[in-house]
């Protein structure tokens, strides 16, 4: 019987494909949120697999906070073009034009306006009734109890007390008009699974994940990269070239690098398994307060 057994990665892959197809079958207007990070790159590959030899039957949407690393945007545009994706890029333009940014308004306001608000705006604009996200349960404590089909009310709010039971692989996809579901097909993947999969499937990822000499400022212990001229001069001045890489990607002023020599996936995994610092500590927004991610989720952020 052993010949009929799958490796854990193949089993996770089969599960994710099942979830993605289920959403495409049950919802009228789904969208896949694409953050340009490694997790969403894996998720997009899984979607391509789910509908092969057909095309992915729903669009991808990137919520652009306008403060992403330049390399991310470049990667996104090239990759989308090469693969013929139906990609929507949405930003909170009103706030952007009003000059909202992390240096002027602080990380909390910036995240709220340029990420959470922008996301809700984007979902509302196209009337999406289901949105895929690349979150994983092992990322953060409060996510451990997240459903794969996570129900959101009319205001996109998540009520931890009012989530539907989820048994076997039978997902309840029924929503009333105006309500929606966030779907997390890679819920059961760990960070190592993601790296393994990127390696096996040769999935292209943003070069920022690999160690390179970059202009870095140490801001309260966080290694912030000088990515454009919007960084205040007095901070940018202190930049030094350092060999660093990023474990997660987001807005450049809010995403800390780690010092590293790892310039291949194999080296990254090796580093990950020996120097064990969980990936989200390098994301500045989490420093706010205990249970902060839960708070953000209640408000509609992923």
């Amino acid at each position, binding site marked *: 019987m052993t010949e009929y057994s*799958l490796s854990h990665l193949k089993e996770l892959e089969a599960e994710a494909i*099942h979830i993605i*197809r289920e959403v495409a*079958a049950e919802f009228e207007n789904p969208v896949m949120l694409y953050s340009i990070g490694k997790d969403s790159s894996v998720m997009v590959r899984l979607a391509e697999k789910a509908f092969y030899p*057909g095309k992915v039957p729903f669009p991808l949407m990137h919520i652009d906070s306008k403060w992403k690393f330049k390399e991310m945007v470049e990667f996104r545009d090239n990759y989308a073009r090469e693969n013929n994706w139906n990609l929507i890029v949405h930003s909170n333009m009103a706030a952007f034009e009003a000059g909202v940014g992390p240096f002027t308004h602080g990380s909390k306001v910036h995240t709220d306006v340029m990420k959470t608000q922008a996301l809700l705006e984007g979902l509302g604009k196209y009337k999406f009734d289901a949105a895929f996200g690349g979150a994983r349960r092992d990322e953060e404590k409060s996510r451990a*109890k997240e459903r794969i089909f996570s129900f959101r009310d009319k205001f996109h709010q998540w009520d931890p007390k009012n989530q539907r039971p989820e048994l076997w692989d*039978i997902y309840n996809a*029924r929503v009333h008009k105006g309500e929606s579901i966030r779907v997390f097909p890679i819920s059961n993947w760990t960070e190592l699974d993601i790296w393994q999969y990127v390696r096996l499937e040769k999935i292209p990822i943003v070069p920022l994940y690999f160690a390179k000499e970059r202009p870095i400022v140490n801001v309260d212990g966080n290694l912030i990269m000088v990515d454009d001229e919007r960084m205040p001069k007095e901070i940018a001045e202190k930049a030094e070239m350092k060999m660093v890489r990023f474990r997660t990607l987001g807005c450049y002023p809010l995403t800390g690098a780690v010092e590293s020599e790892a310039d291949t996936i194999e080296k990254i995994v090796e580093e990950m398994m020996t120097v064990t610092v969980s990936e989200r500590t390098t994301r500045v927004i989490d420093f706010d307060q205990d249970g902060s991610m839960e708070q953000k989720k209640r408000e509609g952020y992923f």
Partner: protein
Amino acid sequence: MKNDKTQNTSTDNSPFGEARGTLDINAYLDQDEKKDLLRLLTAGSVDDGKSTLIGRLLFDSKKIYEDQLSALERDSKRVGHAGEEIDYALLLDGLKAEREQGITIDVAYRYFSTNKRKFIIADTPGHTQYTRNMVTGASTANLAIILIDATKGVITQTRRHTFLVSLLGIKHVVLAVNKMDLVNYDQKVFDEIVADYKSFITQLDVPDVNFIPIAALKGENVVEPTTLMPWYHGPSMLEFLESVHISSDRNFDDMRFPVQYVLRPDLDFRGFSARVASGIIRKGEKIMVLPSRKTSRIKEIITYDGNLDEAFPPQSVTITLEDEIDISRGDMIVYPDNLPRIERHFEANLVWMDEMPMDPNMQLFLKHANNTTRVKFDKIQYKVDVNTLQKSSIDHFELNEIGRVVLTTNKAIFFDPYKKNRSTGSFILIDPMTNNTVAVGMIIDKLSADDLPSKIVDDKTLEANKSRIHKGECLISDAQRQKRFNQNPATLWITGLHGSGKNELAFTLEKEMFDAGATVVLLDGSSIRSGLSNELDFSPTDRAEHLRRVAHISKLLNDQGIITICSFISPDENIRKQVIQIIGEDRFKLIHMDATMEFCKKNKPELYEKFEEGLIANLPGADLQFAAPENPTLMLKPENRATNTKTIMEYLADHKIFPIV
């Protein structure tokens, strides 16, 4: 003492194993990629040490990252319950509210891996009010760890957890007897608990039960083998988890492919995507589509990574067929010689998951095998008390209550008993008003026609039915009937393939008997199927039901002194036996119209052509076996058309069936 341990690799917890010094990361990753996945459930009542055990497994397998650890030290000082030691439980209790209450209120999923395996733990709380959470965690688990506090022994909760685990069909159970440190690692305490538990679990259906003594807080016998319990010779908890054999737990026998998504990228391509629910799907194999019963062959099994010759559960694949058949989501692709149940009425174990109590009159949605249909409750057989396993009758379910019900769906669903097949035996019920998942169920089986409950058979229960039936005081005797009709009643049952000429024989026989003065009634497929059996199809199950009805009619007529001619294919011995049982051996005369397949095809080509085109299925002699009767009363050949009726008439006269004088 401990040399019976077969593997000891887990004692080195470095992800790179012994090879750490001469690390080859590529080799490590290549090996890691091939690990399999074990999903497990942990259950125990509050404070048995569940969170501590899981924390240990995670911690000791080095999956707890350093920063989480330092955050943990900070948190322990503030709200920890473990004094100066690190409180591993804090690692796990995620949501704010429950952290403050200090209890786990939902299902949390944890991940860790060792050199041998990846693990997903469903961590669920133990109170009765959280039964639904435990049921949720159990639904995807291969294995359950049930915790016991050694100072308390087997308690009510232990029984409840074990019952739920067996109800959800988990095949492997480990009883972890925790806090052995508090009973001086005493073997006697452990043995007593084991004996106690064994006497209980034999009532339930769990094939593989194991017992492991541990002290989670101290890490004793969790990862490393125990040194403090030399009397224990089994594996440590982690060693056990790494080695338990699970790959044969799936159903590889009954191929079920419940179509999830129809892939039509362009007009030339029609693919059907799904996860293989059970069995092995093979390229080139002949398949049948339910409910249409159309047949075809598997042309390709497609994946992004290349086509396959076969696919097995839980793979997600896309298939194409040789023929253009109309198939939509919710249809099921199976092998024609291994059909699931195709039924609207069935019995199931139900767990009520919603705060709002059940309204037995409400219509719900049933979602099962990618198929959604309306469903109503016909009957609640009983409720099971999860603590005592006592059954009692009730008229509705409340949150966390479990019991057995009879359901009727709007359209037939394709299922197997949950015991045999977790994927095609499970369903959820959705309230169309709130859209909540209000209940979940595990199908026991279809109901035989005799057991259908009140609402379906139009009477109280079968028991009540039986007590109400009085044998009528008939004023006409059999002898009086014999005299009136000049005949002894009998059923002339003509069997044979479609196209064998049995209908023609039946009609000429009827005419000749009638002309000779017999009182005779002819029953044939088209007359019964157009009315009395019009909801039945040609599957073996429905065919049996159809013939059961015919047999009862024939018996009634025979009882009134009338001779019947029944012309039915009745393809196999079992079906004919059922018929004989109803009619009675004395009156049952089996006439076999023995025609060759070539003759039948030539005589009545239409159906056989349709079959060749894949338009119909279940055709006896073609895809359904026709077993010729071994000892028919008469065996006739269509070639002897001119004399066949005469042969029968002679037999009837010889045996004083008709005429008597």
